[in-house]
């Protein structure tokens, strides 16, 4: 499905492996379009992706959801393609295509036989500048998106909690708005909004093309020059300077009660720094911290203490992905076993974090994690399409090809002390939002107010 990127998943692997062997080449066309070529000649297949440096965090206030809505409209036709013909043409080649939107980027991709790359570039270049929008198409697609929101968000209490927590975490920065948009604003989006967003953001000097698979850099460059080369750059592309967060003065808490909840859980997000060009060390420390604390379902600190040791949790996790334009979050999660309250689960989780901050890193666990990081650069080479995503995402948030190349090595170099320093900095309840997801409680005693729970948790 043309879809939102699900940014928060509870089972994150090790972030961002890159290639040990250098089969990545990059170019910039005269019109500003960036091209990355990842060679893999084992199968006659190619993945072609176009990433735009624009997403939900670049929308005008009051128009939430337009970045994602517009992604759908990109399939609605150009001067030379009727609505639906883009996908139909890809499919007639035996290929598949789709697109996704996040806060910082919007990406379109096709997976086709390698000798169909030219046609894919021809069509993507066409819709980069020649999209045609009609009111009736916009109206129908709005219905599809309302259904999408119903399916992904409103039917899922966990998704509703995450949406509320995001809004609470970011009071001022646009990361606080949902990618798909608030329902009352989605219903008002129209053709004019779409065209304004298109003109402001879709141009070669705001795009990154990634080609991965059975193609040489020379051939890919020649095709890109042919199809993307003639497109005029836009002078309207503005630097992405977004409103920043004011100092957070107090802890924020959300309790979402929903009759559809079967397994209650507690989840917390802390404001955390992101990867920056030439400056990824702290993000690397946080990546390893998430792995140590809750990355492994058996041997992580959370799993050992909460699942094995005390036996009070069914699942636990920690997660972090620093690949964003602006500071984002570090998350922790505990789903208690039946009979253990959310207040008890949260208190136990905080106790584990507190102990970790005094006891420090288990060197054996860290060594195993670094071994896995090293191996992930080997396994990653089996999936050229996955590598295309990795490079596209990194470049779309302002990192460079060199940053992606350096990342595995930086992960190897990070020390225990750096991990502990990052942990000390990030684990500040006054920079956090804590969420409880629960079913209605018939039992009065179980109806602990958040304030009472917080007191309990610190006892």
């Amino acid at each position, binding site marked *: 499905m043309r879809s939102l990127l699900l940014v928060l998943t509870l089972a994150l692997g090790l972030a961002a492996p890159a290639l040990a062997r250098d089969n990545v080449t990059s170019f910039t066309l005269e019109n500003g379009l960036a091209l990355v070529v990842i060679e893999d000649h084992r199968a006659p297949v190619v993945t072609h992706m176009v990433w735009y440096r624009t997403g939900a965090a670049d929308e005008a206030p009051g128009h939430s959801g337009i970045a994602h809505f517009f992604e759908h409209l990109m399939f609605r036709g150009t001067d030379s393609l009727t609505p*639906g013909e883009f*996908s139909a043409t890809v499919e*007639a080649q*035996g290929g598949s295509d789709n697109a996704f939107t996040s806060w910082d980027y919007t990406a379109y991709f096709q997976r*086709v036989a390698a000798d169909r790359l030219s046609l894919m570039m021809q069509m993507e270049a066409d819709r980069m500048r020649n999209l045609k929008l009609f009111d009736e198409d916009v109206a129908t697609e709005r219905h599809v998106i309302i259904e999408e929101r119903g*399916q992904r968000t*409103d039917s899922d209490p966990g998704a509703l909690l995450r949406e509320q927590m995001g809004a609470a975490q970011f009071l001022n920065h646009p990361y606080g708005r949902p990618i798909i948009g608030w329902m009352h604003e989605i219903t008002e989006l129209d053709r004019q909004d779409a065209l304004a967003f298109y003109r402001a953001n879709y141009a070669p000097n705001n795009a990154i093309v990634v080609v991965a698979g059975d193609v040489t850099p020379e051939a890919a460059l020649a095709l890109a020059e042919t199809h993307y080369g003639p497109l005029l750059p836009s002078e309207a592309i503005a630097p992405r300077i977004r409103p920043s967060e004011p100092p957070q003065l107090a802890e924020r808490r959300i309790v979402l009660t929903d009759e559809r909840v079967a397994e209650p859980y507690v989840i917390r997000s802390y404001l955390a720094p992101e990867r920056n060009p030439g400056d990824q060390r702290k993000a690397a420390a946080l990546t390893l911290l998430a792995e140590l604390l809750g990355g492994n379902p058996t041997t992580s600190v959370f799993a050992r203490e909460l699942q094995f040791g005390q036996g009070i949790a069914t699942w636990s996790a920690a997660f972090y992905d620093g690949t964003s334009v602006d500071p984002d979050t570090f998350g922790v999660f505990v789903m208690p076993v039946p009979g253990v309250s959310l207040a008890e689960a949260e208190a136990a989780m905080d106790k584990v974090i507190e102990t970790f901050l005094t006891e420090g890193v288990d060197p054996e666990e860290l060594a195993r994690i670094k071994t896995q990081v090293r*191996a992930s650069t*080997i396994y990653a080479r089996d999936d050229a399409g996955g590598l295309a995503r990795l490079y596209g995402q990194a470049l779309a948030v302002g990192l460079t090809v060199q940053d992606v190349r350096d990342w595995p090595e930086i992960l190897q170099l990070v020390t225990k002390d750096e991990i502990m320093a990052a942990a000390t900095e990030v684990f500040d309840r006054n920079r956090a939002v804590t969420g409880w997801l629960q079913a209605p409680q018939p039992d009065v005693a179980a109806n602990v107010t958040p304030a009472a729970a917080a007191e309990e948790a610190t006892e």
Partner: protein
Amino acid sequence: MMLRLAHAAFALATTLTVTLAAPLRAEIAIQEVTSPGGIKAWLVEDHNIPFMALEIRFRGGTSLDQPGKRGAVNLMTATLEEGAGDLDAQGFAAARDGLAAQIGFGADADEVAVSVQALSENRAEAMDLVRLALTAPRFDAEAVERVKGQVLAGLRADAQDPSAIAARLEAARQYGDHPYGSGGDGTIDSVTALTRDDLVAAWQGVLARDRVYVAAAGDITGEELGLLLDKLLSGLPETGWPMPAPAQLNDAGGVHVEPFPGPQSVVLFGHGGIAFGDPDFFAANILNEILGGGRFSARLMSEVRDKRGLTYGIVTGLAARDLSAEWVGQFQASNDKVAEAIMVIRAEWARLAAGDVTEEDLAAAKTYITGSYPLRFDGNGPIASILVGMQMLGLPSDYPRTRNDKVNAVTLDDLKRVAARLLKPDNLFFTVVGEPAGLASTE
């Protein structure tokens, strides 16, 4: 005029590329390996990347659960990695991660699956761990209780998840008391009652050599693979539990509405299907592609989503399983749109059943099905999975070379004949979980 010209030029370009590129390099060299001990496996050797993907399947899966022990095979499979030999659960995980090996276990209604990716530099040690998990699992009381807790949490979550509720209702309606009629992970009661002895019995009954299938791809030779497999699997019992009987599908049409709060309803629909080995399977597969397959241009996607905006997505598929076959579909829609979407589906079903299909429909589906096939073989992981699946379907190892010919051999007359044979609008059953407006159960 401009528009028309542009279209003509575009169509030409498209046709040209298709013609030029028709013989896609789907030539993957599958070796049939027989180990010194007699275990058969398929292999695609590729030494580009220093790791190997290994896929092992045991036919039968959760359908082998014994009476009163529903969920035993699933729980057994989930507990294989929770301690083996002299390693407890944490010891096993630490050993595995120290080697950066990836070892996964899963069970469904037709098979237990073991998926391994191991680096060339420490393959022997990684395989020792897999061997321990398969032949010497501990099923420690602590591990069984902990994993049981996770399975039970999943079952409680399913009881509040409209998609899971729909799947369980639909299975029960279709197959009643047959294992296909209930979830392989069991029920709260059946899982709660399972004991360590039940898991040991399931382990011995399911992981047997008379039902094992093996495929590998990557940095390993046939000889090395043979030796590895003898070590890995020779400790397993020769035979296991007998295979379950074929399942009888209740193929009556109708509607069932299961009330559930929320803005949308989840809808599963379908009727009887066709076995993979049936001579009409390829025609049926093309029909499914035209009706509701993976393409955005499929009829249901076009009619229900793109033209009317009734859903975010709708898809149909041929579920050709070991013990039965169905033609199924699913979508989610706002409660006020479900009835209209069902009307559109019924109409499209009837239209295709009546033979309303053209040479253009056939050609577009064929180019998609044949063109996408070679694209699947694009890595050690995908290749090993495809190879083991082919063996379970009883296909010969040269199948990738002949498969597209079988697709291309289907004629428009075949499509119309098979549509009349298989598509039965009156037999469509819709299982709806939600609060749909203007729609009631038929029972």
